């Protein structure tokens, strides 16, 4: 088959563009993982109803991990923090009631220009948090 250069280049460019994510997919971070999968490794439940204590412990844990706390809001239950170590790691942790006797802690992180989608760093984070909380981190059912 003989392909003319003038037709081949536009076709190749279309392939090049089609291979990339669309704007909505980028904005909504529609990766390979489902929302449920992400939530399961990014969340843990603790047997306490004390939101303020939980938030203060989350902040202390982030400080132990060398983060500078960017902002926090007790009403909303959110803490955002940034770690500089050659790389830039941004993290947001939210704390919300889970029923009446438990609290759900959810974390998400971004390393440079991409989301952290490996469950391991989240496991590391919750391992530190549960030590600081003196409570066991339970998987969300």
């Amino acid at each position, binding site marked *: 088959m003989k*392909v003319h250069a003038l037709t081949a280049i536009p076709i190749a460019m279309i392939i*090049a563009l089609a*291979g990339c994510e669309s704007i909505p997919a980028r904005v909504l971070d529609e990766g*390979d993982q489902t929302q449920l999968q992400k939530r399961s490794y990014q969340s843990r439940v603790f047997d306490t109803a004390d939101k303020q204590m939980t938030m203060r412990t989350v902040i*202390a844990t982030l*400080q132990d991990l060398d983060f500078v706390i960017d*902002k926090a809001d007790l009403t909303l239950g959110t803490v955002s*923090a940034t770690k*500089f170590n050659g*790389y830039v790691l941004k993290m947001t942790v939210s704390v919300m009631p889970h029923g009446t006797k438990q609290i759900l802690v959810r974390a998400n992180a971004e390393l440079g220009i991409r989301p952290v989608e490996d469950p391991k760093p989240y496991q590391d984070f919750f391992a530190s948090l549960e030590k600081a909380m003196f409570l066991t981190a339970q998987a969300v059912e």
Partner: protein
Amino acid sequence: MKKLVAAFVVISLLGCATSRPDPAADALVVSPDQLQRRQLETRKYTGVKEADLLAASANLLQDMGFNLEESETNLGLITAGKTRGGAGMGEIIGKAILWSFGIPIPFDVDQKIRVSLVIRPNPQAKAADEFFVRVTFQRAVRNSFEHVSRETLKEPELYQKFFERLSKAVFIEGQTI
């Protein structure tokens, strides 16, 4: 021609690669020097109100030229930042001379310094007047090649001096933990 098309396809795939090894896989693992760092960055203040400690801290950061960016008094948090020059004049002149001999060495243009200060009631204290103050400094330095290097500041002297001044501001000696 087929080679050209193949090359485009390869480039298009490279541009969308999603799985690269994570350079910071251990970023959320507690480092071995964590306890030391915590001691360096923390002081305990007894016989003081949390609000007074926060106000004194905010004032001190202002004394040091920081602009307050965020605060949440309910959680004892203050975040502040400032931008300062990078290299001193001597360094710039020195490197300019090297440059004139054809040896380009970058010099630091500016640095953004950030700090978060967190007050936390001592959970083990009997009275409600004992607090831990923990402060962490970090900076991003931009050089004349537009490269930015980012780090957490770990100099013990910086933290010692900071707490000396905070102790003076609240008239109470901060105890090491």
